[in-house]
């Protein structure tokens, strides 16, 4: 297992290098001078020159890339990822600061998705062709087609505008941020803020996952070993939960790893709608203000997350399926 993880990590290195080249190229090729923001009449030209030399902008492109890439991976240095153009803070610190909120949001959304989607998909499969199945399948098909930002917009409208109106202000979901003023660290307040963004992120993934779970379960229910389990005279409960479900969960478990990149992307939009102080909203801010060091760092983090997600999926697969050996 350890050798497998090591081998996969080594295999990931060229891909990470590839990603860094693509990302660097986009930034390098971007029209406009990165120093343009400093060229005001108040800043003397010598200072601009110094800036260009300090950032190495006068050197050839491959040197620029190598110097950026070689410092980038020294994550133990607080200044490895450079400094934000906007605030002057070390990017590494800025990014790390945003990690917990994103993990909290993604983790909660993933948890809600798993807890809801697996029973729902299983129910639909066990009652295939019934009214329950048709309602679940239709609902999930339609829900799956709704873009996440629409769900977010409606969730925001419903929770922060319509519901307070209907209940005369008794129920009002917060529309932005992670915490209310003055209630820092209050878990209830945090939960209250989590509800709408988590709902937004999980509604669509519940639709997708329950469809997946349904087809996985249906697939397994038609397998010979399920028939064997019935022929052995096992109670229905044992046939479904021990023999069918255990196998139906195998592809679902790998979905957890594979859904991580999607969650990061979904989080960018959801975090922006609800102004959640996570990585996604930081990226949207940084792109909008052309804060290149932050953009570069976050894109690399995103790429590594995709690779890590894939690796996680394969490791989980090996853990739940005895047929897989590393």
């Amino acid at each position, binding site marked *: 297992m350890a050798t497998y993880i090591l081998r996969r990590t080594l295999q990931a290195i060229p891909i990470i290098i590839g990603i860094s080249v693509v990302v660097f190229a986009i930034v390098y090729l971007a029209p406009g001078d990165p120093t343009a923001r400093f060229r005001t009449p108040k800043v003397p030209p010598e200072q601009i020159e110094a800036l260009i030399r300090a950032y190495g902008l006068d050197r050839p492109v491959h040197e620029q890339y190598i110097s950026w890439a070689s410092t980038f991976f020294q994550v133990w240095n607080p200044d490895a990822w450079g400094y934000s153009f906007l605030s002057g803070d070390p990017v590494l610190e800025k990014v790390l600061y945003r990690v917990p909120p994103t993990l909290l949001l993604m983790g909660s959304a993933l948890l809600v998705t798993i807890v809801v989607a697996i029973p729902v998909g299983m129910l639909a499969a066990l009652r295939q062709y019934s009214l329950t199945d048709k309602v679940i399948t239709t609902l999930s098909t339609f829900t799956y087609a709704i873009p996440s930002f629409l769900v977010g917009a409606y969730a925001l409208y419903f929770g922060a505008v319509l519901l307070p109106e209907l209940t005369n202000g008794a129920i009002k979901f917060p529309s932005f941020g992670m915490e209310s003023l003055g209630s820092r660290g209050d878990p209830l307040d945090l939960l209250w803020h989590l509800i709408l963004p988590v709902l937004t992120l999980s509604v669509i993934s519940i639709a997708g996952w329950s469809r997946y779970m349904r087809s996985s379960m249906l697939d397994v229910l038609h397998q010979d*070993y399920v028939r*064997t389990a019935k*022929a052995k*005279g*096992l109670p*229905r409960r044992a046939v479904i939960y021990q023999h069918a479900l255990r*196998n139906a969960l195998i592809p679902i478990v790998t979905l957890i790893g594979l859904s991580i990149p999607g969650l990061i992307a979904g989080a960018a939009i959801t975090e922006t709608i609800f102004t959640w102080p996570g990585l996604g909203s930081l990226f949207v801010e940084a792109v909008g203000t052309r804060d290149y060091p932050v953009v570069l760092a976050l894109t690399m983090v995103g790429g590594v997350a995709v690779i890590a997600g894939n690796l996680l999926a394969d490791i989980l697969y090996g853990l739940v399926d*005895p047929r897989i050996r590393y």
Partner: protein
Amino acid sequence: MSGDPVGNDILLSVRDLRTAFDTMDGTVKAVDGVSFAIRRGETLGVVGESGCGKSVTALSILRLIERPGRIVGGSVDFGGRDLLAMSESEIRDVRGNRIAMIFQEPMTSLNPVYTCGRQIAETVQAHRSVSRAEAWEKAVEMLDLVGIPDAGRRAKQFPHQMSGGMRQRVMIAMALSTDPDLLIADEPTTALDVTIQAQIFELIARLREERRMAMLLITHDLGVIAEMADDVVVMYAGQVVEQGDVRSVMTDPHHPYTRGLLASIPRIGERRHRLEVIPGVVPNPLNLPAGCLFRRRCPYAMEICETPPHLTDLGGGRSSRCWLDAEGRAPEVTLPEAAHG
């Protein structure tokens, strides 16, 4: 061994069993009025080409038919009770306990995520009040019985770590772990190598003998029937077309279909220019011909065959579903050459 009716010795009696499958294009009568009986300790062979309803018959006995299939009618009498009329918990008590079943595909019939030992122990625990440790002990004992070397270690292995023949042995161990009265074996060796096939049949025959267990053996191979069975039922397109004791059916087949099946077995020491095959295929179950279902492949087909023939009692426990038998004896002719076009 001949067909004297020994009424009170009957273990399982299937009467007028009908199983249908609802498809988008209509209802398929997969099993259409099948009747037969198995005596205690006896082996009944069911033979026929693929798609003739053999497996569906076997699955229907244990009510393992899944939607879109359903058992439409008939009865399956087992120890004085109708299996088809039992409650869900009653039939569960019969499955794997008094009637056990082994399947065609040992590769897929075992659950890939559990060890072989666990899957056997689970069966024992479902039907006997034993502790987990006792059930595991029984599993190892059964694996040893079916000739798996180093059974204690093998029990801890997963199905994918075993060969096809080994897996079928595990299936047999699982089936016999509860000492059933009847074993239903649905083409147990079709998926295996020829050399392994013989070993598995030998094993089944030996264990069956030792335990005085009755068996319903389903196969498409009349050679296997000749080796293993006492009585035989020949099925075609969901119906029984001939039945009787093996020796007389093999030496003196009545129904043209049985003759065709026999003619297609190569025999040692017999010089033939060509191996006879039955021309054509089993008719599309959605579009069965009117009258005799074998009519369009039959070299003896006559005008009257457009009327469905009934099962004619030939005496001595034998019967045949053919107008030739209803009207006398079929003429002994070889299949015409033209049939091989």
